[in-house]
């Protein structure tokens, strides 16, 4: 598409360029600051509420900085619900899912990127096609399957699928492995290494940058998952943090200071992880978005 052809003397642009640069930057910062306030205010509101006493909660106008700071809200959460247990349950699920996902995606991606076998390309297209399957179609029959196996109220339905690898993550790792020179594999093969050894001793260490993303994505997905635990778990002692939070909300409709304290604690792990891995993560998301 071509640009509008109206001609303006280039001298006019030249003349304006220097002051234009500064005003433009100030404008950029103002816009960014305005957006930052919009995005961050809910966080701020959550944090201050989490530090208010019940009396301060219903004060009009609301206090921006609560005085005194009610730190005891955080310990109170642990007394009202088995929140420590929820954290433990979530951590357990996250650990197993991450292990399963890293193992499966590495192995499957290696299979797709390094082996020549009939049906490979068709299967890879099927793998990509499964990305399009809406989850509601699979949810009901999966539940029937796991219910018939007697796995309701166990962690198995929330763990087992990870050991098959997620199609999106397999795709991502496979793309990465395609960029690793095949000479490395061949040299190792000449030295008598088996494919299994090549994968775990050579390809795996080189793939760590992309596997970090697998870990982060899986961690966040499992930690934040709400519907899975909601459908499969009914014993409150087995609840995850997300599910426990809704359970807590149902029981404590009006204790917003406690609910906000709990919500804050539920948000911290994925957000901290995000802040640590953000450079690589945002790059990865962008790349996946463009290529996907």
């Amino acid at each position, binding site marked *: 598409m071509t640009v509008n052809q109206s001609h303006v003397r280039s001298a006019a642009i030249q003349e304006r360029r220097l002051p234009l640069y500064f005003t433009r930057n100030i404008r950029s910062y103002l816009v960014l600051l305005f957006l930052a306030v919009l995005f961050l205010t809910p966080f701020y509101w959550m944090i201050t509420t989490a530090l208010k006493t019940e009396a301060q909660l219903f004060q009009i106008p609301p206090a921006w900085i609560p005085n005194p700071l009610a730190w005891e809200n955080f310990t109170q959460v642990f007394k009202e619900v088995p929140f420590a247990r929820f954290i433990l349950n979530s951590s357990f699920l996250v650990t197993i899912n991450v292990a399963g996902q890293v193992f499966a995606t590495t192995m499957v991606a290696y299979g797709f990127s390094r*082996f020549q*076998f009939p049906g490979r390309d068709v299967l890879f297209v099927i793998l990509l096609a499964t990305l399009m399957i809406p989850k509601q*179609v*699979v949810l009901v029959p999966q539940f029937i399957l796991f219910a018939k196996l007697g796995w309701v109220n166990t962690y198995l339905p929330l763990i087992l699928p990870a050991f098959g690898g997620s199609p999106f993550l397999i795709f991502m790792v496979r793309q990465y492995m395609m960029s690793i020179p095949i000479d490395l594999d061949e040299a190792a093969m000449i030295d008598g290494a088996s*494919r299994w050894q090549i994968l775990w001793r050579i390809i795996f260490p080189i793939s760590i940058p992309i596997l970090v993303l697998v870990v982060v994505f899986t961690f966040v997905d499992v930690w934040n998952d709400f519907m899975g635990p909601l459908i499969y778990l009914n014993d409150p002692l087995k609840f995850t943090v997300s599910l426990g939070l809704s359970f807590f909300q149902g029981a404590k409709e009006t204790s917003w200071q406690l609910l906000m304290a709990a919500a804050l604690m539920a948000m911290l792990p994925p957000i901290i992880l*995000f802040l640590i891995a953000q450079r690589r993560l945002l790059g990865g*998301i962008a790349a996946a*978005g463009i290529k996907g």
Partner: protein
Amino acid sequence: MTSKALSNPLKRWRTMSPKRRQEIVGGYLFISPWLIGFLLFIAGPVLMSFFVSFTRWNIVGDPRWVGLRNYERIFTVDKDFIQALKVTFRYSIVYLPVTTVLGLGTALALNAKVKGVGIFRSFFYMPYMAPQIAATLVWMWMLNPRYGLINTMLGWIGIEGPNWLHDPSTAIYGLMLVGLWGVGRSAVIYLAGLQNIPQHLYDAAEVDGANSWQRLRHVTLPMLSPTIFYVVVIELIGVFQTFTASFVATGGGPLKSTFFYMLYIYTKAWESLRMGYASALAWILTIIILLITMLILKSSPMWVHYEAEKK
């Protein structure tokens, strides 16, 4: 691969070198975790779901074949189905354009070549990382009619804020805010698209005297249209699966004004234990998503500009 060899794979297998056989077996072994998972957790369930949608089944007993009766009921007498569709469509029609404009706007702001822009990018993305349920709780409190921050701020400029989640006419917009808070994710994808636009196009436009609006209209948007297309499709699929916020904050109310389609599937399957009916609902939703996606795909030549096609 010749057609003769294909027609007799067994014979072909016998004439293969051991090394080639090893390669084939190895390949399948390495991809077996996915293959087994796919057959067990995806392909099997999808086929089964199709079958189940023609039955009456409460999981405990045996499924009873009812033919098309589930579909018939849904399309003729089911008022909840109509309501769920209405709510989901009403939400999408407002949410999709708003999230696209906001996402693009945020991405344009982030595309400024100024120092410290990376910190802002992280700020904007952060809400998307929060568990949906925690984000929903935050917004429930933000939108509290009496003590919430939103109505407090509206009060400053002399507006008496609505009852938000407790009012059937505003509840859906309250829930929309939870979704919009996560707009940073599409902004980051747009940003990557923006950074792929070659600088020389802007330089050329500037030489031609295009102002910033014209540059946006005639360079940025056309060049970004494939990315916009991708994000809109992703958002669309996501919108039709909206569940957590309505389940937690409103339970579909007040007066079913936030009774999303996914919530309906959930109540049918897990509260009434009507697996057959829920499966039929799920298939109908899938077909709807498919149709709309195809519609967008069909319309794409009108507004999506692929650089590769021109060359």
